[in-house]
């Protein structure tokens, strides 16, 4: 623990400070978006969006190295791919409901395949593991600013349209009767989810990000009586998991993504178990 605090102040390990900052900033968006995702029951859509991000990263890396498009950053590719996946899945689930799960699976694997093919055609060795499971050594100060800026957009939209998004998540039919453009807000929600997923790719990686979207919100759901309480608690839990995960992984030299996710998973199981015990004892 002392090691971790010292390392946070050490200029030689600035990446650790950046990772913590990025994780804490992203937790704010996670709280807001994760609560919508869990109550609207679209965590599998969030997972598909997360995996499709690899396609965007692969394309961006390829264009950068082979075509010398130096402005084409992996995070830009990730954001474009995530938004594209969100809109494709959203439109299909709105207009062709019965095939929703098929399309989700398709977007999921096509995105990953595209990414791996681009990696294969890019000269030099690119390790997809750092994108899949995160690598805090790669986090720069610029990434932190990016997380802050994109997170601010997500939180502003997610809270600005709180009442409408709540109505759409709770009772879509009634919201439509009140003149709320239900399809638009559903797509907005998926796009906010897409951006939130991208925020965390550097810290915990594509595969693990879905745990941080869903688990803090799911735990918060056990305590919250209103959606905004769920958002606030989910944000707090996410901050605790990111901080304790980094603090635990740094001195033990373990990859931080899996440690963060395992802490979140253990906390979720514990809370679910306690809630079950309490119900059994007739509360």
């Amino acid at each position: 623990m002392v090691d971790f605090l010292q390392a946070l102040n050490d200029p030689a390990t600035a990446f650790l400070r950046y990772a913590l900052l990025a994780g804490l900033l992203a937790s704010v968006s996670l709280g807001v978006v994760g609560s919508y995702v869990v109550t609207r029951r679209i965590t599998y859509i969030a997972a598909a969006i997360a995996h499709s991000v690899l396609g965007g990263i692969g394309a961006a890396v390829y264009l950068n190295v082979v075509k010398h498009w130096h402005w084409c950053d992996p995070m830009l590719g990730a954001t474009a791919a995530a938004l594209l996946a969100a809109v494709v899945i959203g439109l299909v689930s709105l207009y062709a409901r019965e095939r929703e799960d098929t399309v989700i699976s398709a977007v999921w694997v096509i995105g990953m395949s595209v990414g791996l093919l681009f990696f294969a055609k890019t000269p030099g060795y690119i390790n997809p593991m750092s994108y899949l499971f995160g690598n805090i050594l790669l986090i720069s100060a610029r990434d932190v600013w990016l997380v802050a800026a994109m997170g601010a957009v997500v939180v502003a939209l997610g809270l600005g349209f709180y009442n409408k998004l709540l109505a759409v998540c709770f009772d879509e039919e009634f919201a439509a009767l009140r003149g709320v453009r239900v399809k638009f807000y559903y797509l907005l929600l998926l796009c906010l989810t897409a951006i939130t997923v991208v925020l965390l790719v550097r810290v915990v990686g594509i595969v693990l990000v879905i745990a941080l979207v869903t688990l803090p919100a799911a735990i918060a759901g056990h305590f919250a009586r209103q959606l905004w309480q769920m958002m606030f608690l989910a944000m707090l839990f996410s901050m605790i998991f990111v901080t304790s995960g980094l603090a635990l992984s740094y001195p033990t030299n373990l990859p931080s993504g899996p440690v963060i996710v395992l802490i979140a998973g253990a906390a979720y199981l514990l809370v679910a178990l306690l809630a079950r015990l309490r119900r059994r004892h007739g509360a």
Partner: protein
Amino acid sequence: MSDEPVISLCGVAFSYGAAPVLEDVGFSVGPREAVCLVGPNGGGKTTLVKLILGLLTPRRGEVRLFGQPPRSSRRRAGYMPQHVQYDPRFPVSVMDIVLMGRLGQGGLRGLTGWYGRADRHAALDALEQVGMKEFGRRPFGSLSGGERQRVLIARALCCGPDLLLLDEPTSNIDTMVEARLLELLGELNTRMAIVLVSHDLGFVSGLVERVICVNRRVVVHPTSKLTGDSIRDLYGSEVRMVRHDELDM
């Protein structure tokens, strides 16, 4: 308020896939009129309500709500659905739900969907009307079936409607609350049209002027002429009728 019908249907047909649900449906409901839709399960009552609100589009015929296509005028209707597909763990308070009736107003507030003081007053007022004023802060999932139903009625009232559409408002409600609801509906009926879906003809007979029998086709009966025969025709079997007026003696 003009005498233009609030609801009018002409030659309306609807089917889910190949199976026809409604055929050649035509009737109208005037302002400040109260009608009840009755009929067997699967006869098309809820489908008819959804057609009136523009949630479904008829295969043939025309539906008019306040003289317009339902989609452009349905904000003037307050609707209580029979079922809300609802997750008991959804973190939402009674007040949150009733306030949803205030969405869809014009101007800047309509754009963001933020509620003001007037909206909160309207929501509290609606809760008071259904006798649930002190439940505002309670989580919706912690309520009983009857209480949830009253909250959804309050949400419909909170829309400030010119037409109230209630789908099975009494299915979970006990007799005492039912009597109060009936009184409330009678009072509201002086200001707005009311369409009820109900199995409970005893409940509605004091309120509505006409009963609209829905069983794929639609037959309209004035309440005074509702006899054992017409009910038997509708349900297709013998139905015992309780004559409330005789019990009162």
